[in-house]
């Protein structure tokens, strides 16, 4: 089994689905010969032809709209935003057309919008956004946020097969940092959308998170273990559908919930998680549901400011200790 990076896993998932299903195609800026700004679509045009990995004009609304129309006409488009940040331009197409078509006439829109997501890479305010919380309020869109190479692979394949529009948030920080042995091709394993996973069992508190902060949460859990605190780490993986069951089950066992994401605090997906826990696990709670997230500011460019912006392991650790001691 080859060791693949998170980014290679994405490339492999695309290739495998394109191989299996000729309706699947990629479109986006520079996705063709160039293979995308990050290389996620590398060699796909060479392998599958120009109509299967299409270089598009710089027009994110148009790209999204074209993908929606092609999806409705029976294709399985995978649209790439060069950076997730630019999906702001496709926002209207996604929430107006993609999200509401099936509800109105039962005609599905099997579409994936890949968004290279997140900070920690010195990208500044316009190349670092976490875009998942731009969409979770809009009924009709699924949202995937894989944290590992296996999940990147397996969830992308599931997203492509899903008959619904899926905003697929790929964390750039993980692109080359996350690696794993990932079976591909006929041995490839699909990871269903809508299922959270307990990354590490624990009994004193639950750290609920997704994407890049799964790594930080795991490191923090190690350090807590040294202090005799047993932290469970729950990786949401999909935000929509939201696997409330796994989250509530964890919190009901530990009695304490720490909700963590790299995205900024206010209106982040963590608010929804905290609200659900607060309402449905109230009687199990031994401490306030606590959130750790980025500052409510744009994402500053220079490293010293970006570090201040981001929720760090120390921030998570401090909050976890406080919860444990509560």
């Amino acid at each position, binding site marked *: 089994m080859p060791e693949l990076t998170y980014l290679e896993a994405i490339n492999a998932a695309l290739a495998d689905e394109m191989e299996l299903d000729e309706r699947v*195609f990629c479109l986006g800026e520079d996705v063709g010969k160039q293979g995308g700004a990050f290389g996620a679509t590398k060699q796909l045009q060479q392998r599958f032809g*120009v*109509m299967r990995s*299409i270089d*598009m*004009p710089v*027009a994110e*609304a*148009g*790209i*999204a*709209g*074209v*993908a*929606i*129309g*092609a*999806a*409705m*006409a*029976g*294709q399985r*488009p995978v649209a790439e935003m060069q950076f997730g940040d630019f999906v702001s331009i496709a926002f*209207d*197409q996604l929430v*107006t*057309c993609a999200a*509401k*078509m*099936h*509800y*109105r*006439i*039962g*005609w*599905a*829109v*099997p579409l994936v919008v890949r968004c290279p997501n997140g900070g920690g890479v010195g990208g500044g305010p316009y190349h670092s956004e976490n875009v998942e919380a731009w969409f979770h309020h809009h*009924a*009709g869109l*699924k949202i995937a946020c894989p944290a590992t190479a296996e999940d990147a692979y397996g969830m992308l394949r599931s997203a492509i097969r*899903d*008959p*619904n529009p899926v905003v697929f948030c790929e964390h750039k920080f993980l692109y080359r940092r996350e690696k794993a042995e990932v079976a591909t091709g006929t041995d490839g394993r699909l990871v269903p959308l809508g299922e959270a996973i307990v990354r590490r069992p624990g009994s004193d508190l639950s750290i609920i998170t997704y994407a890049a902060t799964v790594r930080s949460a795991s490191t923090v859990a190690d350090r807590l273990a040294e202090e005799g605190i047993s932290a469970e780490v729950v990786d949401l993986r999909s935000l929509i559908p939201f696997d409330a069951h796994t989250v509530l089950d964890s919190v009901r066992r530990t009695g304490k919930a720490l909700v963590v994401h790299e995205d900024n605090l206010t209106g982040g997906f963590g608010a929804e998680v905290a609200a659900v826990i607060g309402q449905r696990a109230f009687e199990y709670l031994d401490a306030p549901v606590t959130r750790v997230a980025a500052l409510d500011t744009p994402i500053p460019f220079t490293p010293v400011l970006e570090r201040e912006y981001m929720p760090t392991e120390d921030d998570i650790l401090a909050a976890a200790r406080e919860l444990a001691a509560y």
Partner: protein
Amino acid sequence: MSSSPRQISAVPSPPAVEVSDALAMEFFYWMTLTRAVEERALNLYRQGKLPGSYYTGRGQEAIAIGMVLPLRRGSDGDWLSPWIRDLGSYLVHGVPPWRIFAQFMGKAGSTTRGKDGNLHIGGREWNIPCQVSHMADMIPLTVGAALAYKQRGEDRVALTSFGDAATSRGDFHEGLNIAAVLEVPAVFVAENNGWGYSTPISRQTKVTDLHKKAAAYGIPAVSVDGNDVFTVYSAMKTAVDAARAGQGPQFIECKTYRMGGHAAHDKYESYMPMETLAEWSDKDPIKRLETALRDTRGMVPERLEDVRVRVRDEVREAVERADHDGYPEPAEAHEGVFAPADYED
């Protein structure tokens, strides 16, 4: 991916296409039906029987009809994404009149089962996506459908129509530019009726001859009298055939006039010039078609009257059926946000 676009002339006009008497009578049937459905619906609206607001395409029937007749119908036919003035286009493309009334009434037999209103009508069986309110949003979708047909090597086309004001939107621009670059079989129909709500086209754009905008994308374009169904049909047939033959996207401007308010509740008298309305009233496309049928084609009045009677019956039946239709169950509001995993294309 190569194409040989037709020459874009300064005042482009389409070649004339032969129209048989039978086809001309089809024009008459569909246009008469369109107007009858709209007039009936307007009455129902005024009687408070239709929730929401109400829009008509009165005076623009030649476009609604002429643009769809060249298309192939059915789920494996051509994609049609019409503008709200084009009720007739739904009829021609296969939507039964009663379901349109059911849609206006918010009944279960509405193509959206009451989930959407007005001409936000659609369904896979007719290959009509359900339009959204946001003007020009359907243009990129139409390009996407055309791309799908091209990718699969099917000789299908995708057609969308929109008002003059929609040309101000970014999605118009992005959609047309992409269509041109990808050389897809998309047909764009601009219905230039001089107004966008209370805003005259001169405040919408400096380039009020909309076909000129197509030149910015390298898309061949023509401009036609939108109130003459023969001309409209000729232009549409030529464009649809060209697109189907692999000649890339096509653009048709239809010059017409909005024969009243933006919507039924709009007090248009405060801003629309009454003389112009009166002038255009003389150019009514149905009147003109009747004259052509009678004077040029020697159709006897009885044949036209037969059509009118048939239409009257059909509309009566359609309203009755919609009237007797029930409302959706409240529980249906919860259903259908997501397509099920076993959804079949």
